[in-house]
């Protein structure tokens, strides 16, 4: 039986009977993605844009109600833009720069994210997760209309998996009963409780934090004035709990996040009267409508490896972090960014299968960085020992008067992309005086060029970026085309600062996920060939 686990906000992939269900033998698909959450759908966009046939199975018929993620970071938007849906997210989202930190009643300090000029996307937007997912699914529909080989099947629940030599066989349950399909490659994007992970008996190790959070999304009524800022309280004196966060979302909705401890009666706490009791104490008489509320607990865990032969894991299925720092969906999007092109090249026979091991290596590295950061935030917000509480309070007290203590205040280090330093695919970093932000392994940094954005010209395939120097417009290395984008840094200080540093000229080899694979001061075909081979796992 198919049982819904959550209500839908948007029924965007209703069940339809597929011809696969009427076949006597299981139909084989090149790629099957289990899970039509943000990560599964984003991966379908990546593969669909490469013209690789991809099938997404989800056990519901659309996007879940309830917002969950609200903070989407710059890199995540840049990746979405590569898939053709970054702009609609930006348009709908709320851009914020100012944050305030309070301890008990007193303001400790405020900070401004001070946006750097010359980037298409801001450091962050706030956007309810259902909107984020809707932008992805709408883009998927648009690509389908253009003929991209993407299919998504709602109410198709994966019930069993059998790993064979060169494929995986799946038992799928639908409202019309069960059927079987096969996949050359299976990608598990089935969320934090990943049924696939369990079916395969794979571990998920780390820490469970003994705390729970009550989140309420509220719409303000009347003329209560709340700013477009992030307000964070340590040990708020209104209401109980270790911390409270107030954050603006689109549609005049605010997210309030109360940390309420471990020993709570969930059913009791979630009763509207009790949610309102906390909110009233906090908001002091303002009138509001309660849009959504939920209680969550969290863990910081990851799988040992994100590749198990023909099965790959991405998003929450592969790793889970605490919500401090907004690293869940944001890092899942980086998984997709990393996996899409590698899977594409392997399927097309242009790269060896070991390239997929580097997906695991690079993204495990990313997951560890995220887990480290979010664990540190959690330990600061909820000190685990007497002495760590003493130091935490000392930092908060000092931060009011002394600037030096402010960087020590940790109410969540907001998600920034991972740099694959010493990554397995890195080529030479041979640009003397080149800036650190664009070193080998780093994702490209945006810059304005001739009335457009630099990043918009990259992604999808391998590219050369040449600055103040030239390279052939198009090269071909064993079936892998490398096109060249040539720009000038004269009268473009932002580009110079981000890509030249002290160098006069530069040549960057850029991966399909916009990460820097290698860089030099001039073009040399042999060097580029060698670096390309390294970048696709050929030895």
């Amino acid at each position, binding site marked *: 039986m198919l049982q819904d686990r959550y209500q839908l906000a948007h029924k965007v992939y209703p069940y339809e009977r597929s011809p696969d269900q009427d076949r006597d033998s299981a139909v084989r698909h090149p790629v099957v993605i289990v899970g039509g959450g943000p990560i599964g759908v984003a991966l379908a966009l990546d593969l669909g844009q490469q013209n690789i046939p991809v099938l997404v199975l989800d056990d519901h018929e659309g996007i879940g109600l309830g917002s969950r993620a609200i903070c989407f970071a710059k890199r995540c938007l840049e990746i979405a833009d590569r898939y053709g849906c970054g702009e609609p997210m930006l348009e709908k989202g709320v851009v914020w720069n100012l944050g305030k930190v309070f301890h008990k009643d007193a303001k400790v300090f405020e900070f401004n994210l001070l946006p750097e000029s010359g980037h298409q996307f801001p450091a962050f937007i706030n956007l309810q997760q259902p909107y984020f997912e809707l932008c992805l699914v709408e883009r998927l529909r648009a690509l389908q209309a253009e003929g991209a080989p993407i299919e998504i099947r709602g109410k198709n629940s994966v019930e069993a998996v059998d790993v064979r030599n060169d494929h995986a066989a799946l038992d799928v349950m639908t409202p019309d009963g069960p059927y079987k399909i096969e996949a050359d490659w299976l990608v598990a994007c089935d969320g934090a409780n990943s049924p696939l992970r369990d079916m395969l008996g794979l571990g998920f190790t780390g820490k469970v934090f003994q705390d729970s959070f009550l989140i309420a999304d509220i719409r303000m009524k009347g003329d209560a004035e709340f700013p477009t800022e992030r307000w964070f309280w340590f040990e708020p004196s209104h209401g109980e709990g270790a911390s409270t966060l107030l954050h603006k979302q689109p549609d005049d909705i605010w997210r309030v996040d109360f940390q309420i401890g471990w020993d709570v009666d969930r059913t009791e706490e979630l009763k509207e009267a009790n949610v309102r009791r906390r909110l009233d104490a906090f908001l002091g008489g303002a009138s509001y409508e309660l849009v959504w509320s939920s209680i969550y607990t969290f863990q910081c865990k990851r799988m040992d490896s994100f590749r198990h032969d023909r099965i790959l894991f991405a998003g929450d299925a592969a790793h889970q972090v605490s919500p401090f720092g907004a690293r869940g969906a944001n890092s899942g999007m980086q998984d997709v960014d990393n996996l899409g092109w590698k899977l594409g090249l392997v399927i097309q026979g242009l790269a060896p299968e070991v390239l997929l091991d580097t997906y695991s290596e690079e993204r495990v590295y990313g997951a560890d960085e995220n887990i480290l950061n979010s664990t540190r935030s959690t330990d600061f917000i909820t000190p685990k020992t007497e002495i760590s509480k*003493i130091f935490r309070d*000392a930092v908060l007290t*000092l931060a009011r008067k002394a600037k030096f*203590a402010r960087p020590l205040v940790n109410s969540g280090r907001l998600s920034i992309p991972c740099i694959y330093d010493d990554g397995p695919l890195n080529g030479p970093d041979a640009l003397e005086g080149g800036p650190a932000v664009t070193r080998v392994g780093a994702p490209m940094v945006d810059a304005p060029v001739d009335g457009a954005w630099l990043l918009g010209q990259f992604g999808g395939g391998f590219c050369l970026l040449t600055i103040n120097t030239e390279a052939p417009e198009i090269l071909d290395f064993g079936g892998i085309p490398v096109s060249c984008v040539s720009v000038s840094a004269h009268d473009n200080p932002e580009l110079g600062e981000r890509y030249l540093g002290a160098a006069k000229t530069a040549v960057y080899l850029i991966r399909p996920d916009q990460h820097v694979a290698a860089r030099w001061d001039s073009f040399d075909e042999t060097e580029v060939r060698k670096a390309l081979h390294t970048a696709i796992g050929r030895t």
Partner: protein
Amino acid sequence: MNTLNTDANIAKPDDFYARLLALHEGKSKSESDAINARLVLILCNHIGDSEVLEQAFELACEN
């Protein structure tokens, strides 16, 4: 490598020591703990150099 100065560096040791203890006079245990923690943070920031700090941490942990 920058090294931690473990030679005597305080001009009037007895005055300094008395002053340090005076910070805690009449304070409860938790007030004293808070003062100590703030003092450690202030001094660490003043030093800044992570190599020097690392040597200080090590010395502090020796019994």
